[in-house]
């Protein structure tokens, strides 16, 4: 009998499911990739076969045109859609089941089963409600492979309603200006828009050109974002008193000169730390994250209660320390190429 869990091997460029010769979120092209969600550090083009939720496949198609060919342009790419709760059989007697991770549209945790052993790869996840995707589900397992993007005890994300109220208060106080919110194009932007709608803000919201296609994709998947307009189609006067959403990189860019005296805001978990906000010249920090905060990370480990916890990327030192302090077996995986695209 082989040693327990010897069928799964963490490598710096992904988690290798040996009997199936499949990789979870590989950062280099492989024959068979199991992809948790569409963020660039998890989903790459160039794989022979990509197994993911239909939403994630649609996002990958939009971002990397994975649908037809790989980067070299010769091997035909095969997309294998898996619905939430659906199980697919992989070679080598491995089963994979996709469960919601609550991170962004289409994001999934992947439960891998082989020889009576259960391993869950969370990809990125959060535990808060999000109008753009179904909530995280606790999946009992032996090995729990978790992210740790906000894995420091100082990270506590406040209730999103508080952050929305901050944004809307500032908007109301400056009817001649606009609030420019920097938000990642996949996930954060749509969540901010949907939460604004939930908070009763139904005015048109203006978009940087780079956000448009992803918002349309969300709408096609049934997420109502209300009236969206493109900044490039409008004058300064049109946008007074409005919310404008752009990628973080455009916040201090020349592009923002076309806006009416913007109040610079940024929606990110890093905004919890003042110096981080100041580095980006942010006047209105909005602590909004699509990742689990420290409390959620530790609570999730307790609730899943695995035999062992593996930590993929983020601030793994601190989460590892917490596991030690709570007599939980844990190890940090030295993964490469996972950056915080989506904080």
């Amino acid at each position, binding site marked *: 009998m082989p040693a327990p869990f010897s069928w799964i091997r963490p490598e710096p460029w992904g988690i290798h499911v040996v009997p199936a010769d499949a990789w979870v979120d590989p950062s280099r092209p492989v024959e068979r990739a199991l992809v948790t969600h569409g963020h660039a550090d998890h989903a790459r083009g160039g794989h022979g076969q990509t197994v993911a939720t239909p939403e994630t496949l649609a996002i990958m198609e939009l971002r990397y045109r994975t649908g037809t060919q790989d980067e070299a342009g010769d091997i035909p790419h095969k997309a294998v859609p898996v619905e939430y709760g659906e199980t697919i059989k992989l070679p080598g007697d491995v089963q994979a089941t996709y469960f919601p991770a609550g991170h962004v549209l289409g994001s999934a945790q992947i439960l891998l089963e082989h020889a009576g052993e259960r391993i869950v790869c969370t990809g990125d996840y959060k535990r808060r409600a999000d109008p753009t995707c179904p909530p995280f589900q606790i999946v009992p397992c032996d090995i729990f492979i978790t992210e740790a993007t906000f894995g*420091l005890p*100082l990270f506590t994300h406040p209730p999103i309603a508080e952050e929305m109220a901050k944004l809307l208060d500032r908007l109301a106080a400056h009817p001649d200006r606009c609030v420019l919110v920097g938000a990642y194009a996949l996930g954060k932007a749509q969540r901010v828009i949907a939460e604004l709608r939930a908070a009763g803000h139904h005015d048109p919201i203006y978009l940087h050109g780079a956000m448009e296609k992803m918002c349309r994709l969300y709408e096609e998947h049934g997420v109502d974002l209300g009236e969206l307009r493109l900044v490039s189609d409008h004058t300064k006067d049109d946008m007074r008193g409005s919310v404008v959403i752009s990628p973080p990189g455009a916040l201090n860019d020349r592009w923002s000169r076309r806006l009416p005296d913007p109040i610079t805001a940024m929606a990110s978990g890093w905004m919890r730390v*003042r*110096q981080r906000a100041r580095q980006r*010249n942010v*006047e209105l920090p909005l602590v909004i994250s699509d990742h689990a905060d420290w409390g959620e990370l530790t609570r999730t480990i307790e609730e899943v209660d695995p035999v062992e916890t593996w930590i993929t990327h983020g*601030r793994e*030192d*601190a989460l590892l320390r*917490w596991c030690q302090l709570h007599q939980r077996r844990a190890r940090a995986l030295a993964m490469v190429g996972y950056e915080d695209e989506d904080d």
Partner: protein
Amino acid sequence: MEEFAALIDALVYTRSRNEKLRLIAEYLRATPDPDRGWALAALSDGLDFPAVKSSTIRNLLKDRVDPVLWSLSRDFVGDTAETASLLWPAPDHPPSPPSVGETVELLEAMNRKSVFVELPKLLDRLDPSGRYALLKLATGGMRIGVSSRLAKTAFAQAFDVSVEEVEEYWHGLAPPFAELFAWAADGQAPPDMANLPTFRPFMLAHPLEETVVDLSDYVAEWKWDGIRVQLVRAGDETKLFSRSGDDISATFPELLDVLPFPAVLDGELLVRGSHQGGEANDVTQGGAASFNALQQRLGRKTVSKKMLAEAPAFVRLYDALLIDGEDLRALPWTERRQRLEALMSRLPDTHFDLSRVVEARDFDHLAQIREGSRDDAIEGLMLKRKDSPYIAGRRVGYWYKWKRDPLLVDCVLMYAQRGSGKRSSFYSDYTFGCWDGDPDKGAELLPVGKAYSGFTDEELKKLDRHVRQNTVNRFGPVRETDKSLVFEVAFDSVHESKRHKSGLAMRFPRIHRIRWDKPVHEADRVEALRALVRD
């Protein structure tokens, strides 16, 4: 405390000076005494609570948070107070924030022992923003981009009073500044400064530049190259203040028992020396040693007898603000001058003399006199309108300073260092040198000075590129260049200095022109620079 915490957060995230002023002014108007006074003190000069140190906070947290998690978090945040405010375990009861006044009272009552019991109680009453504001307040420096002057300006703006008047009372009052608010906010009588030896803000001059003044309206005085001081006597105590209002009495004890009556006098502090040989009756008035000699005495907290004997200080008087308790500031300069002249007989000539008026037929004649003066104790001329009252700050049209034309020398760029703040991505601090002999016969460059001003932003970009493309060596933030670029350097004077290999040190060097065109072997030699020394 919530409002104060909100103000601190807003200031942290605000870049515009006007917006900062508006935020502070709004807070000061909306907040009752004594909270606003304590807040004003915290924002301006800072408050000092000896029981609370940065190490106190660290120790408190180590009892509550695992030390490894603490240090990982501290490294990530980069600020002890902020880390602690975020990591402090949330109490199970809702916050019950104390007022700023109550907070200050509690902090004042703490000692090095009780702080470990009392500070946690206070932290438990606050949310993370409140804890951040509390810890910043308790440990002194807020470091949120608000200067003392900005805080005072905001106060003046809040209550529509002049900032100069605020400055005047400020130095005689202590936090929480009840009298200051009573005067500015509630229209009560201004604080009584009569019996306090407090600093009165200086009247300052504009550069003359292209202006030509009519000498029937203006008088000229030498601008002496010492340090501008104010000597104040009130309530049997004498104090000496520097231009910024710092109390420098301890550095010049010989001046503290020579003013026998209540007065506020404005003058130039100089030390006696012999090198100039100028007599009191000379056009230029002599008897002062160079700025170098004065430098030896500045910044010392105690003064040796030897130093007092070798380099005794005296004040060359420019003006009188108060004499025998009478405020002269509203009088025209001519009248104040008469009063000052009459006063000289009551002052010991060992420690005081009068800054002479420079007589000239007309402006052109004055320009000639100015050109002719290369006395090292002279920085240039002052032009004062005869009818000017003594007004704090810089008012257009009353006083002008007309500095001597700078000296110029051609130097070669040797090293460049990254600047700070906005310039941190640029090599903006330059060290330059002159040849120690004939460059065609193997002479070497010796550093003679450093400059980081005198060029435009456009020129800075070009200089930065030059440095990056012509680097031959790196030492941390410093790059050594291939010594291929000539600067025309302007400076006010040059002195012997043992600290530099060249034996010379410049005062106020700045880049006058960048000579992209000039071959480096045509730059000046150290001996040419030495010839300009006037010590």
